């Protein structure tokens, strides 16, 4: 297959081309309530072709290797047409030619367990949750994804690599006196399957919180100082800042390119934000991205100043900045786009107690439940929270959303704790249509934001 793909690239007069061919195996098991809704092991394959030709970029997906010549022909024709229309030639940064084969090596491989074993494990967790007081429904899902990828480009790179993960995510839904609340759980096997075993106590702990959420009052909308826990702080840095550090988001937005120049003051000296695919055993770890580049650690904010951003070869050329190796594709349906690997706020020097003690009247908010950004505007939800009065954690609150403008909010981060923690399960939505990437990690310590806009009921 390598020779066939190479020949397709070599025999055409194209400026630059690359092919990514994937063979993907996915295992899915879903419980809803007491019912097993879905159990399957799937296989799919296909390819993606990218050409930089006649000054333009044209990309296409194909279902089978034999369809490649037809796709190539179409794309070359589109590039000719586009060339007449293109105002500025699209160029890519020079990059090393790489020939390598890197396959995952782990101790506890999910592929060594039978479908029956995985079903049994998920059923055990689901059964435990569904029998608890006030629980009216559950959704438990096991997902295992293995992608074997071959990358070949017209410059001579040939890389075989893979991605592997397994995870269990669940939503437990409880109802009491007309109030419905949802508690999410997430256990990640990135890549070790053993992380998913023996988690009963974690489920019971989450259900205990859920029971309390049913009796909590909705938060009162307004502006408050807040402490957010590592899970929620990591969602904040991913959603609000991380996406703006992806150069394709701002490449063609002159106002943001001006706002986000390297060296710009983004926040106080205590803030350092890093993206790093080389950290082991977290969701966004990889050696090579889907553009044939080595994944590298990138300091995005260093001591409060904008220090770097995430790039493709195209944006690295456009910004005259170093390559970072952040081009990732969810599967062959899509071209790679710039995505965070493992983004995190680096640990600070304050203790959690010191942060609490600094707040007279505010909130402690925990765990993200989804977020969305457009430009510099963000909104994300917190699963639950607590009132803080004179440094002490008080009554629980629920139905919490936080919104704001990134640049102002970053400047309002006044304390960073020393307890950096990574989320077990990865996830990121980006693109049009939305592409959900499960190999995207995030982490943070507790942080304090002096003033946050909270929406409630």
């Amino acid at each position: 297959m390598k020779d066939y793909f190479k020949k397709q690239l070599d025999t055409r007069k194209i400026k630059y081309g690359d092919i990514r061919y994937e063979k993907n195996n996915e295992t899915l098991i879903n419980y809803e309530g007491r019912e097993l809704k879905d159990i399957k092991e799937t296989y799919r394959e296909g390819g993606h072709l990218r050409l930089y030709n006649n000054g333009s970029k044209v990309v296409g997906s194909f279902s089978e290797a034999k369809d490649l010549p037809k796709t190539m022909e179409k794309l070359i024709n589109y590039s000719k047409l586009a060339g007449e229309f293109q105002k500025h030639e699209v160029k890519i940064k020079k990059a090393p030619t790489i020939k390598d084969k890197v396959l995952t090596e782990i101790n506890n491989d999910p592929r060594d367990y039978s479908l029956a074993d995985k079903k049994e494990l998920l059923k055990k967790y689901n059964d435990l949750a569904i029998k608890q007081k006030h629980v009216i429904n559950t959704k438990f899902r096991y997902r295992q994804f293995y992608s074997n990828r071959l990358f070949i480009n017209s410059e001579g790179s040939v890389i075989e690599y893979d991605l592997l993960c397994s995870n269990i995510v669940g939503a437990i839904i409880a109802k009491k006196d007309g109030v419905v609340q949802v508690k999410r759980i997430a256990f990640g096997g990135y890549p070790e399957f053993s992380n998913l075993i023996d988690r009963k106590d974690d489920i019971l702990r989450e259900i205990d919180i859920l029971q309390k959420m049913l009796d909590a009052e909705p938060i009162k909308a307004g502006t408050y100082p807040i402490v957010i826990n590592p899970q929620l702080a990591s969602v904040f840095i991913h959603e609000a800042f991380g996406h703006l550090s992806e150069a394709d988001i701002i490449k063609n937005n002159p106002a943001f390119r001006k706002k986000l120049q390297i060296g710009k003051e983004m926040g106080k000296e205590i803030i350092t934000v890093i993206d790093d695919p080389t950290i082991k055993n977290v969701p966004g770890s990889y050696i090579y991205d889907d553009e044939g580049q080595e994944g590298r650690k990138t300091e995005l904010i260093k001591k409060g100043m904008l220090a770097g951003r995430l790039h493709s070869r195209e944006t690295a050329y456009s910004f005259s900045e170093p390559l970072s190796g952040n081009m990732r594709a969810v599967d062959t349906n899509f071209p790679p786009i710039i995505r965070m690997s493992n983004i995190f706020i680096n640990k600070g020097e304050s203790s959690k107690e010191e942060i609490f003690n600094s707040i007279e009247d505010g909130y402690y908010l925990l765990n993200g439940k989804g977020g969305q950004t457009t430009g510099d505007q963000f909104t994300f939800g917190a699963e639950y929270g607590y009132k803080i009065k004179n440094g002490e954690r008080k009554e629980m609150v629920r139905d919490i959303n936080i919104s704001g403008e990134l640049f102002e909010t970053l400047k309002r981060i006044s304390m960073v704790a020393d307890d950096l923690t990574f989320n077990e399960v990865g996830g990121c939505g980006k693109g049009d249509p939305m592409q959900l990437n499960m190999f995207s990690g995030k982490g943070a310590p507790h942080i304090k934001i002096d003033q946050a806009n909270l929406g409630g009921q």
Partner: protein
Amino acid sequence: MNKMDEISKNFDKAEFLKKEVDKLKIKIENWDLENITQKNLVSSSLRVIKDNKFGSNYTFGNSERTFNKLIAGARESAYYGEKAKFDFSRQKLNKKSLFNKDKFGKNDGKKLFGFIKDLLYYIEQKEKDITFNLRLNKSSSKISLKTTNQAELFEKNTNYQLRFGAPVPGGGSQISRTLEQDAMFEDICIDEINDFLQDYRNSYETSSPKTGNMPVLFSPNSLYFLFVSLNEGVSGKKVYQNISPLVDKRGEKIFSEKLFIVDKPHMKKSSSRRYFDDEGIKTDRTKIIDEGVLKNYIYDLEYSEKMKVEPTGNGLKKALFQENISVPVTPSFINPVIETGNKTKKQLLSEIDEGIYVTNVIGFHSSNYEQGHFSVQAQGFHVKNGILQGRLQDVMMAGNIYNDFNNVIGIGDKLYPSMFGYAPYLLLEKISVTGR
């Protein structure tokens, strides 16, 4: 041996769904071509019953190898699966003839670029300093479904979708418009461009109302959060599971009597249009809300069987942010439409003494939307005496659709695509807004 014969040989009963999609997308960013995307993809799903147990599988690709793996996976799925709870379709339908023979069917690249050039030229003459973005999609699909119950259904669709917009001054959120048709656009939609430019020119300044309850004018684009929440409410699955807030509410008034919401799967210009669902059940116009009264729930095969009612042709492979072959079937609107009223956007704005005009909502899925709650960032404009004062900044809006949509003041006279379904402009009497 053909594929259905091979499937019949392996299973007691089976349903084979195949989707072939041919897509072309031209993307312009800041006036220049960003890229062209071409997709030719085949995906298939197989649902089976073997030894009275249910199984399923899916794959991409059309080779013998992927087909064999599809069958093997479905066999394993049924082996571990639970008792089958419903039977597959027996219906027949052929909608080949509806395939659009529009004049841009061939040699479309050149024609599409010509259209884009005209549109860019028009806008450049009017407002050359904006950061103008555009995306033009052409999508052709062939969908076929066969079952061992002799169901045989086929449809072809072609759609064109145009989305254009610009980030507000300073580069933040985007003001945009979306249009779609079943044939290539005949002209460059001057009315919509001018309306977009008018909104854009009002976004230079920021202005936010004081916190309180106030009238809210929703743009069609922003109303997708209503459709998503209502979809959860009327889903036969959520009703069966007793999670929906609309359990036992059929026949009751849940919204303003001014609201009529209908699922219109055959709406010609909609890119969501379907003549049968992903289970081979013919789709049909379904009244959901009539004068504010809940008329119907929507069902797929599984939940129609569980609730002993007829399926409504709403079984789609669709989830909140995903619609593809890998997603299990669930009851979903195909093309929900809020019926138009008789007021222009200008008339609706003129009815606001002080309030907001919302062009987009951010973060609705972080709220408990299954129960109708919303707590979102409102993007749009502050309105005083019918005049836009400037774009909103740091404004949130919270409530519950089953309370707030009881107070509709007026409805626009024209339909536009929302991110999900179609809607006119809609003016509500009051919503809780957190502003200054």
